[in-house]
């Protein structure tokens, strides 16, 4: 709550100003009945025409002042409300930007989006509403009560009676209707559920001629819905006539009691008429306070939802004394006894991970879904931090390196191609804004993204929000081009090749060879064909490394790897693979034997 409310701070003087303008507006409104009273008492009963005119002109002046004040309040309310929303929005966005993946997961992307847009918007609406209309209610109530006391102190009890009747009505309705609203929400869900079931199971229902049964089920929910809606709406439609009844009753009571007061000389007629106006204003003010009670909880929910974002602490911390990389960094990636578990998870998703990825080599990760391979490489750019152990680049713990230095060394290609609105060029240049057109073209060529040249405007082609106007495969290739353009020391391909076909996959790997000659390449893959040529393949199963080596070595020694291979290769292919390996193996054995013999000699 506090985190959000503090954004009102820059507007404190406007808040004071609006308090003043609102008070002036209220003062003007309250002045009128009083002056009307003196017109009646002195002007009409006292038979003074000039008094009526002069007092009337005064009323006009006060009306004008009041009008200006209320317009001013409206202006201020709009400025404060939208300005406050602007600050909250900016702070929320910046905060979410600073989040690590752990915090994003905690809220879910969808929820963060609605919080940053809808909830902020809701807050703006309610703020303006409160400032413009509800703020004046308490001021009006106080002012009207004071004026009422001044005009007819003996009749205030009539006013109090009216207000209490009002409250009883509102509270009674509230108590009666609110629980039913919750039931309605449940019934809507139920109706939706039944209809959805009918829709999703349409083929089966048709096949078994089950339509009547479905219709009956729906009709039952429908009837429940109708009944409760009738009840609620009838209860609510009680509101208007009852309110009118109370207001009229109060007016009548004022006249009746007023007659007695006038007879005993305690009250002037004009004052009685003024009192009627004041009583109405007081009742209306209290009605607005009641409305506030309805609006406030909604704003509170939104505020709490935003406050939750703002008060969330980032689990990834920048080092206090960051260590820089060497001028000519190599890009050696080393995992040392790494264990990782997601927040609030029981079992670690990775444990005991040890390996080193050398520059000039490709290190590949393979394993079934949920084996932890994507999680593993997410630890390198610090999407998450390890739970135990260390991730080192060139011997430095990634947690001791500044975020800027760390990500500068990494070219990352996500699982699903992610593009941003702009042009093809702006997307490729995203990680390296200063590169030349030639370099952009080269990156696109390597990434097999020649399709760009056929696009309208080529590299200046417009990319829609989220890249929705290019295909999945194209997105993926542009994502790869973006990573290449950055010319990093370490490439991370998070299962980035599965969206492209086998041919492109092969061409891509071929084209990547020359530029990754002295780079560290880490690839997560599904297809063995993608990583067959990798210098080091790490096989993961349920968070453990179960095999490490080349394709050949693993086919011979690693059961999990062999199973994956068997599921992807046809029998003949498998046979051929194994035969080739056996030949290679025998050759190696013979060579060893010879060596042994030689040694023996």
């Amino acid at each position, binding site marked *: 709550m506090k985190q959000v409310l503090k954004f009102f701070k820059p507007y404190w003087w406007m808040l004071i100003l609006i308090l003043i303008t609102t008070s002036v507006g209220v003062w003007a409104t309250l002045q009128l009945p009083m002056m009307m009273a003196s017109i009646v008492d002195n002007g009409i009963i006292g038979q003074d025409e000039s008094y009526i005119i002069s007092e009337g002109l005064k009323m006009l002046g006060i009306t004008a002042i009041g009008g200006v004040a209320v317009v001013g309040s409206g202006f201020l309310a709009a400025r404060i409300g939208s300005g406050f929303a602007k600050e909250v929005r900016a702070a929320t966005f910046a905060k979410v930007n600073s989040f690590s993946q752990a915090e994003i997961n905690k809220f879910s992307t969808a929820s963060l989006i609605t919080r940053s847009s809808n909830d902020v918007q809701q807050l703006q609406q309610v703020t303006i509403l409160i400032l413009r209309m509800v703020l004046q209610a308490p001021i009006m109530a106080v002012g009207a009560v004071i004026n009422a006391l001044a005009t007819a102190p003996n009749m205030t009890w009539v006013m109090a009676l009216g207000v209490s009747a009002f409250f009883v009505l509102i509270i009674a309705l509230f108590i009666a209707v609110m629980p039913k609203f919750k039931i309605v929400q449940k019934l809507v869900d139920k109706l939706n559920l039944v209809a959805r079931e009918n829709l999703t199971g349409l083929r089966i229902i048709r096949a078994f001629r089950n339509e009547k049964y479905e219709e009956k089920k729906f009709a039952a929910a429908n009837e429940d819905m109708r009944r409760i809606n009738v009840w609620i709406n009838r209860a609510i439609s009680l509101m208007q006539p009852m309110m009118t009844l109370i207001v009229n009753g109060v007016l009548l009571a004022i006249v009746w009691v007023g007659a007695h007061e006038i007879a005993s000389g305690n009250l002037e007629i004009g004052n009685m008429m003024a009192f009627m106006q004041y009583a109405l204003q007081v009742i209306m003010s209290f009605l607005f306070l009641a409305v506030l009670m309805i609006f406030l909880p909604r704003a509170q929910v939104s505020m709490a939802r935003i406050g939750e974002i703002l008060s969330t602490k980032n689990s990834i911390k920048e080092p206090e004394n960051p260590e820089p990389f060497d001028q000519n960094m190599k890009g050696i990636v080393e995992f040392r006894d790494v264990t990782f578990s997601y927040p609030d998870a029981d079992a670690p998703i990775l444990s005991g991970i040890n390996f080193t990825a050398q520059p000039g080599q490709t290190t590949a990760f393979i394993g079934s879904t949920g084996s932890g391979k994507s999680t593993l490489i997410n630890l390198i750019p610090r999407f998450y931090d390890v739970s135990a152990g260390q991730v080192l680049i060139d011997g430095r713990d990634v947690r001791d390196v500044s975020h*800027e230095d760390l990500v500068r060394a990494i070219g990352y290609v996500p699982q699903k191609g992610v593009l941003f609105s702009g042009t093809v060029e702006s997307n490729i240049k995203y990680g390296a804004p200063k590169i030349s057109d030639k370099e952009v073209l080269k990156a696109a060529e390597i990434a097999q993204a020649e399709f760009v040249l056929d696009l309208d405007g080529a590299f200046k082609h417009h990319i829609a929000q989220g890249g929705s106007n290019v295909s999945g495969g194209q997105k993926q290739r542009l994502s790869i081009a973006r990573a290449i353009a950055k010319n990093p020391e370490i490439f991370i391909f998070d299962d980035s090749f599965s969206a492209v076909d086998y041919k492109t996959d092969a061409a891509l790997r071929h084209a990547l060879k020359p530029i990754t000659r002295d780079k560290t390449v880490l690839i997560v893959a599904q297809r063995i064909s993608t990583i067959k040529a990798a210098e080091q393949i790490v096989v993961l199963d349920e968070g453990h490394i179960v095999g490490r080596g080349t394709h050949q070595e693993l086919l011979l020694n690693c059961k999990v790897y062999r199973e994956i291979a068997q599921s992807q290769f046809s029998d003949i292919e498998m046979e051929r693979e194994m035969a080739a390996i056996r030949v290679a193996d025998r050759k190696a054995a013979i060579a060893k034997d010879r060596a042994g013999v030689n040694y023996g000699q």
Partner: protein
Amino acid sequence: MASDQTEELKKIQANNKPQRGPMGHGGPAAMMPGGKAKNLGKSMKQLAGYLKEYKWRLLTVLIFAVASTVFAIMSPKILGNMTNQIVNDYIKIKTYDTVMEKLPQGATLPKGTTVAKLSDLMKQQAEVELQMQKDAIVSLPAEQQKIAIEKLNNEMAAQQKQSQEFANQLKNVPQDQRSEIENLDLSQKPTMNYGYLGQTALLLIGLFVLSAAFGYAQGWILTGVTQQVAFRFRRDISEKINRLPLKYFDTRPFGDVLSRITNDVDTIAQSLSQSLSQMITSVTMIIGILVMMLSISWQMTGIAVITVPLSLIFIVVIVKRSQKYFKQQQDSLGDINGHIEEIYAGHNVVKVFGGEKRAIQKFNRYNRSLHESAWKSQFLSGLMFPIMNFISNLGYVAVAMMGGWLAINGRVSIGDIQAFIQYVQQFNQPIMQVANITNVIQSTAAASERVFEFLGEEEEKV
């Protein structure tokens, strides 16, 4: 005055309801109807077909609504009569007090001494006294006579002035009341006519209760009808689902059909009861109030009626101007929401490629232009209420001045002014409702069009 505020609140409330799509937060519903029907006439006709079987109930609703409104409109005038009675009695009491002040303490007047008789008596006595004094002066020595005559003249002037004032007070009282006051028996203190006041109060209570009862009965019946219609819509849709060819659903998301069952049918039920009852009561109210106002004074009615087109002109101007900003706000909101979605969804990429700063810069740009259009549209749409309030206050002042002037000349009574002020205050609300009714009808039509469209799809041939 206050009822306008309630209207606006209702609008904002309606506007804050969750709508389709993430960007469903715009300006007041009055300016941005939830969607426009392609063929308004056709869908309204189809809707009327659905309502046909409830025609007797709807007719009852109509009669009850009119009755409730008529009773409600009558009451301010009757309340005004009560005030008039109080004013009359008050003047009598005051007259009595004025007369008694002049008499010596504790003196009483014989029964049947009216104000008219009293002033005759006073005149006679004054003449007698004058004669006596004149006689006395004559008997005085000459040098003293001059001083005595002067003194007498002064006394006479003062006395004349006093009786003139008294006569003036009576003269200004309207004719029918003047005779009443002239015939006022001064032998005892007059009081309020509580008998009359009590009877009128009872009559008023009766009217209030009747009006509330008819109003509630109207709402009660109407709710039954609209919910029955909603029920039938939902039932028809659910049955239609099972009669449509399967391929119909290949191209359409389920959500679309589901939203017709819930959102659209809800909109129809809500707007139907709103538009039906508001149309009747608003029109009745406008006519009724006009009649009542005219019965009090055509001059005052003229002033009150002038303020209406004045407010309407202002509203049209403001709506036109603010619409531009609402459009801009909607666009900026689209931009910013799109940016938020994009950046949040690509969070990892933004991080690894160091795009945070640029994302925030772009966001700030969008945020600034959103802020710019947001405050302008909010300010302009918020102007509507204070300007209407200002104009209605102008009307109030004008009515007070005009009414005061007419009252002095005995053309209207104080109770009439009081009633008139009540009428003027009630006048704005039905006019606003009528002005808004086209929007309500539009959204009813749009929602029912979507439902009828679905119900009219070609069915599977058996």
